[in-house]
């Protein structure tokens, strides 16, 4: 099964490699393996294909969470289970394109229905990540989760987006630590394995679900190509390299996602009843959110921008949103 989320990396990384594939034999030179683009490609594969079990911490200056994760690919199907070890008990299990969440199986399902989790994905018009980010890699003397690593820096070409410092397992290229950093190199969000076993064998039943939570329906497929691509509400300004990646509509509400190949933000527009509410903004780790209101034909519309971009960028995008007649 081709997973749409791979497109972000695939468009840039896999396609050139696929063209070159006949020339590449089993013996890849060490230098090529350490080329940052190639490392990221291997990372993308490892996340999907490796069998691993580990404990990771995730958070920002405000709060930290601990999660346990197990993952394998068997007969071409991905099995994944994420369990919260802090806060309220919570577990997510995914087998292929079926997802279940306990103790609130309805919650994710409802959101999935709304957004179409496996929607159109990042399309081929997506500009190359290379135009927006500079990549560099270096071997690191550090270890993460007790394993030697290689570091890849994804450095934005402008201050209107975050960079990422990634630490990959030297053997398998599994992502062991990711820091989202602002233009001052302050870490706004970190994801890091504390402990990990890679190449583990899982026993049958380790991805089984409790009796009270069957796996949900398969996630919806992409809408037909003739479907509308927007509602006329669009940002007048986008940071360079961002383009539309997906569109969903549910009743009066719409969601447009934009991506530059690494970062993504979504624009939600929905009409509200009554008077305008105050405009607000908030930030959680790398996620910024801006809410403002616009009137059109006697109706007040709520314009919400959510994404992994700095607050100044989120505000600028949100303030540029206008309605264009078709």
């Amino acid at each position: 099964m081709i997973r749409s989320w791979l497109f972000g990396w695939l468009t840039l990384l896999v396609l050139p490699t696929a063209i070159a594939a006949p020339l590449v034999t089993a013996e890849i030179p060490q230098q090529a393996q350490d080329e940052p683009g190639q490392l990221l490609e291997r990372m993308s594969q490892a996340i999907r294909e490796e069998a691993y079990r580990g404990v990771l911490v995730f958070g920002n200056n405000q709060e930290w969470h601990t999660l346990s994760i197990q993952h394998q690919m068997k007969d071409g199907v991905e099995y994944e289970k994420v369990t919260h070890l802090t806060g309220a008990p919570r577990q997510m299990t995914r087998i292929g394109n079926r997802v279940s969440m306990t103790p609130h199986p309805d919650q994710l399902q409802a959101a999935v229905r709304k957004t179409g989790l496996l929607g159109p994905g990042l399309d081929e018009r997506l500009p190359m990540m290379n135009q927006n980010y500079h990549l560099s890699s270096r071997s690191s003397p550090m270890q993460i989760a007790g394993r030697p690593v290689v570091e890849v820096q994804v450095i934005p070409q402008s201050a209107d987006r975050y960079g990422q410092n990634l630490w990959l397992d030297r053997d398998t290229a599994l992502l062991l630590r990711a820091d989202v950093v602002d233009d001052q190199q302050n870490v706004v969000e970190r994801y890091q394995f504390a402990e990990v076993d890679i190449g583990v064998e899982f026993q049958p039943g380790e991805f089984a679900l409790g009796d009270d939570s069957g796996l949900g329906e398969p996630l919806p497929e992409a809408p037909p190509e003739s479907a509308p691509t927007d509602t006329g509400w669009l940002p007048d300004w986008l940071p360079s390299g961002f383009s539309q990646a997906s569109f969903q509509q549910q009743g009066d509400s719409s969601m447009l996602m934009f991506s530059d190949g690494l970062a993504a933000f979504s624009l939600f527009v929905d009409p509200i009843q009554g008077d305008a509410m105050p405009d607000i903004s908030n930030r959680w780790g790398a996620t910024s959110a801006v809410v403002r209101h616009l009137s059109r034909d006697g109706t007040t519309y709520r314009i919400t921008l959510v994404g992994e971009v700095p607050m100044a960028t989120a505000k600028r995008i949100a303030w540029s949103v206008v309605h264009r007649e078709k």
Partner: protein
Amino acid sequence: MMNDRMNESLSALVDGEADELEIRRVLNQMEQDDELRQRWNRYQLIGSVLRGEPATTVDLSKGIMQALDGEPMDEVPGGLNASTGGEVAATESTSTGRFRSGWVASGAVAASVAFAVLLGARFMEAPESGTAPAIAAVDTQSMTAPVAQPAVQAVSADPSARVALEAAVASVQSEPVVDETRLREAQQRLHDYVMQHNQQSAMNNGRGLLPFARVTSYEQGQTGEAQR
């Protein structure tokens, strides 16, 4: 050269509109940045004058950090940073008690935090004013708006300050009244949208679990907040 974002954050802190992360960032940066620290001192002075309080250069930053960390407040000696606040002489008589009452009376950050709990976010100004030069952001209105009521009681005899404060109070009172139900609805909707974005993002990129961790952790954070 102070960057614009730090400037905005400093203004937000002075206005009592900074969230906790922002406050911590400004205070941390202040330790390394003389220009920022001096500006902070000037802003505090202006605030004191407008509130009719004795001008002081006591640095509130340490107390704020301790309040955020939930530690008991240390004694903060007066004139701690007198050397950097050359415009007005430090009042050596400033005591811990004075500091505490000043902090509580101004209460801007506390009020802002209380409101953030209700709304899950803070009010925002249009970028036109948000991107104005820092010193313009310290106009009397934004300076005093969050503390308008106590400030009026403590208003100084300075007529210009009084006029400014009255204007600030008027602006606060003329703000539309938004009922709590609608605020909660707005908060819930924003929550749903952040979830939707994160889930969509998790399925549309090659970073695997990173955005998914964001989904679930964001939920946890919300749960925790609801329980407080």
